[in-house]
């Protein structure tokens, strides 16, 4: 017998607690093309090369036949935001930011048979924005924020973004900040066991208690611990030895900064 818990996520009341509603995210596959993996949404520094166009507003656009990469410098902050614009259908593009593989560990549990239903219900209740992004991804919704997969340079990565119509010639700051903010939130809340348990009260008990949570998350290998163990996700996309603690701090600063910008608009 199914337990019904109705959650209004703005999509009408949906059956929460059913992992099948969110376990088949959209996948955008660029495998046939010679592209490199998407860059993580935030870079500590960046000097792009190639077919580069510099605009006057601190934005550098890198053009390729398959996508445009927007490098957005944060004034007064140590960091560059990265957004991608990619043809999707005949009448739409995808505008997105990559969180690389940092969401994979948590998604494995969210979509898995052992804890998926309980975790999905928890996400729907405690983090409805994330639940909506996964639901829209599953449904391939247009114009709605999604959390989906990209395959670029032989790497399956996670992205936060939405479709935009090809007739649209510019993007509002609101849209840009929204995507970057959501991407950073996904990264910060799901890449740290402590942050995850804060974002999802009840998360630890669903997975069987603190020791089991830590062991399970480490076993997946896709999450970073608060002490800075390197997962496969972030380390590869930064050149040299990444300062993980610095990355978290910068991400939180930028998140606060862009959040302030959003409120001002």
């Amino acid at each position, binding site marked *: 017998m199914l337990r019904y818990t109705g959650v209004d996520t703005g999509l009408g009341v949906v059956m929460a607690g059913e992992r099948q509603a969110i376990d088949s995210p959209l996948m955008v596959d660029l495998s046939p093309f010679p592209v490199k993996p998407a860059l993580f949404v935030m870079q500590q520094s960046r000097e792009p090369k190639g077919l580069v166009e510099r605009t006057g507003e601190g934005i550098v656009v890198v053009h390729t036949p398959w996508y445009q990469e927007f490098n957005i410098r944060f004034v007064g902050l140590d960091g560059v935001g990265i957004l991608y614009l990619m043809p999707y259908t005949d009448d739409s593009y995808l505008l997105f930011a990559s969180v690389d593989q940092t969401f994979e560990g948590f998604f494995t549990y969210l979509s898995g048979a052992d804890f998926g239903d309980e975790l999905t219900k928890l996400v729907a209740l405690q983090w409805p924005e994330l639940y909506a992004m996964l639901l829209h991804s599953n449904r391939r919704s247009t114009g709605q924020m999604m959390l989906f997969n990209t395959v670029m*340079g*032989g790497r399956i990565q996670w992205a936060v973004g939405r479709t935009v119509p090809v007739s649209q010639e510019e993007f509002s700051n609101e849209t840009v900040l929204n995507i970057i903010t959501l991407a950073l939130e996904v990264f910060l809340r799901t890449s740290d066991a402590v942050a995850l348990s804060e974002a999802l009260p009840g998360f630890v008990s669903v997975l069987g208690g603190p020791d089991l949570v830590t062991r399970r998350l480490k076993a997946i290998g896709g999450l970073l611990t608060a002490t800075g163990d390197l997962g496969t996700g972030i380390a590869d996309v930064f050149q040299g030895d990444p300062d993980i603690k610095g990355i978290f701090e910068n991400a939180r600063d930028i998140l606060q900064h862009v959040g302030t910008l959003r409120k001002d608009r």
Partner: protein
Amino acid sequence: MGAVSFLKMPRSLEEDELSFVIGYAPHGRQELVDDNIGYRRSDYKFNIEHLIQDGWRAQAYGVCAGGNVFVAASAGPLLEQWWPLLKASPANSTRPVLSAAAATEKVVMTGMGTEVEVTVMPSPEAGVVLALHYIEKANYFSDDAVAMCTALSLPVIKTALLALSEYPTLVDEVPDTNVAIADDDVFVPLTTLLEVSTEMAEMIPWQHKP
């Protein structure tokens, strides 16, 4: 170099076969070798394969199409997808061959006391970028046309190699991917291919005249 006749070349080339400018490993097909150059043909085309070393070949082909004879070399599909962006971008001194080609200017190659104009252009039907030089108006390959194609294959090959070696200027980072270079059976990393194209270009004693 002795005179090579088109009809004496073995007919071991498929009509729609378009050899990449860089070849590697024996293809196992029958060929006529003259002065370290391998020849094989179809009805309207013949390959000119300069045997370099260690199995590497620098390849061009003579083609008779629409009442004209050309000698051409294929720089492969890598640059073809970039063409619209190249045409929309300003000239860049780090990619002189591609900049000239995108501006529909001929690439001038100098060597052996002469200059040869080479056209670099995409071939959307074949999905590749070609470097080519017009030989003569004709409906068949005379011995003289074969000799001209052979003699001018080197500046055409070098132009294709130079175009290819300018690819890194288009990207932030050369992607870590493999590309096929021989009948889709032989794959090499793209970075290796670009190194080989630069080295092979340096071995050819023709120069790009800016």
